[in-house]
């Protein structure tokens, strides 16, 4: 498992790249920018990436993170990749529901079920 900055950890599985957020709170714009740069650098290394984002540690995030996810998904889908989100706590899931982003993202209970559903 490789550690990139203190913000994410990256694991390369057989079928997928799994990125876990290591921070409990993702808020500040500068943090989000750093986070985006870190994730994008991973995405750009793999052609047609099958990326799973693990939110297990995240207890709080702002709408700026949702913006990051949308930018990220655009980049991935434009390059025929796949993106799946998982391990989202009920409180964070509520934010996805309110904003109807449950319609645009594939959200799974855990990493295993997200990996299973990769094509």
């Amino acid at each position, binding site marked *: 498992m490789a550690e990139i900055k203190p913000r994410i950890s990256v694991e390369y599985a057989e079928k997928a790249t799994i990125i876990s957020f290591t921070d409990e709170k993702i*808020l500040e714009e500068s943090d989000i920018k750093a986070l985006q740069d870190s994730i994008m650098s991973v995405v750009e290394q793999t052609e047609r990436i099958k990326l799973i984002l693990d939110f297990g540690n995240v207890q709080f995030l702002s709408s700026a993170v949702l*913006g990051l996810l949308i930018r990220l998904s655009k980049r991935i889908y434009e390059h025929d990749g796949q993106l799946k989100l998982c391990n989202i706590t009920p409180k964070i899931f509520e934010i996805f529901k309110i904003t109807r982003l449950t319609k645009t993202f594939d959200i799974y209970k855990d990493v295993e079920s997200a990996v299973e559903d990769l094509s």
Partner: protein
Amino acid sequence: MNRRAGLFKSGQCRVLTAEDDWCWFVSLMVSKATINRSIVVKSKPSAIEKVCEQILSKLKANGFDKDDIFAVHLALEEAFLNAIKHGNKMDPTKEVKIDYSVGLDKIEISMTDEGEGFEPEAVADPRYGEGLYKPGGRGLLLINSYMDVVKFTERGNGLYMVRYKEKPRLAKRDDQTQV
């Protein structure tokens, strides 16, 4: 009615009457339970952190639960980011004024920036159409969703929001449960 020793005022001692007792009790309750503060902060994203710490610790002290604390935290972050980004246009010379009152039953927050204001009705709903795929525009939706009262000043550069600890029961909901 010498129920207990009295109050010292200007060096004089007198016995408390029933009315004094009540006023003293109420003023003690108000001073202990309701916290009013006014803070002015610079237009930088990290400035909200200390304000959040202050407000959230007072919510905790006044018995608000985790859901309330999460909701107020989110609304504060989103409102402040809107104020400095869209209101003050990240101008470091401009400030944001935050007034808050934390009571036993509700929290009230007012936030005013130095911007030109905006029309909240003119903001596109990010849940539908192209808005769903745009990176921004969800802050206002989240504030409206997590706070019980959300009002803007006429100019649009001031926001007033309230969250109640106990939600009033809706008549409609009562009807639905009877069916």
